[in-house]
């Protein structure tokens, strides 16, 4: 079952733009080759590091949002570890968090819409209106 992960990594600041793009494309291809999907690639630009990493004071942050299985992430992490321009990386699993957020959003939506428009809410989702008084 594929899961959503956020992989953030820092590239060394003295790297050329084209090389960085090439490297990122390489990482993206490892994900797609492993059967994963790259959702977004966001270059957050150069920023100061909070502490010195490999004698660097700043770095280029890149955020990769992927949807993949565990082994794909493992392979991606291995590549990040061995590639020399990457000075730091972190992988965070996001699917649980997203699920929670969606739930909260839905709950809030029903709560807000229930008092003024009960008729439409009942017509749209009877289960939701049943849940709303219980939670209120």
């Amino acid at each position, binding site marked *: 079952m594929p899961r959503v992960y956020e992989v*953030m990594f*820092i590239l060394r600041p003295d790297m050329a733009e084209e090389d960085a793009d090439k490297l990122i494309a390489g990482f993206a291809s490892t994900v797609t080759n492993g059967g994963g999907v790259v959702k977004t690639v966001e270059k957050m630009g150069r920023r100061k*590091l*909070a*502490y*010195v*990493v490999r004698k660097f004071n700043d*770095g280029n942050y890149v*955020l990769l949002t992927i949807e993949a299985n565990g082994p794909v992430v493992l392979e991606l992490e291995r590549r990040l570890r061995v590639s020399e321009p990457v000075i*730091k*990386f*972190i992988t*965070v699993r996001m699917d649980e*968090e997203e699920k929670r*957020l969606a739930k*909260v*959003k839905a709950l*809030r939506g029903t709560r807000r819409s229930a008092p003024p428009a009960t008729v439409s809410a009942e017509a749209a989702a009877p289960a939701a209106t049943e849940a709303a008084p219980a939670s209120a």
Partner: protein
Amino acid sequence: MPEETQAKSTAADSPSPSAPSPGSGPRGPRPAGGPGGRGKFFRRKKVCKFCTEKIDAIPYRDVRLLQQFVAERGKIVPRRLTGVCTTHQRRLTRAIKQARNIALLPFATRH
């Protein structure tokens, strides 16, 4: 002028013995409209920023948000000082630790 201040202080002092100060302690009901002599001990009720402002997600990328809950030396500020609720403090702590790992936040100040 000195007379005036003296009068004020006596006025402030006089209601305190009559008030039920013994027993009720420092948090007891203080005379209303006083000159604020004991205002130092007044504590505002702290509320969770995330609950009141309805911030659902605490992403580790949001340095601005996390920085509010990190002390000068890089420590995570305890809940009892910030008023954040337990649930959100847990998430906040996790986000701060993740941010530290990717050098968005410091583990400690430099040097």
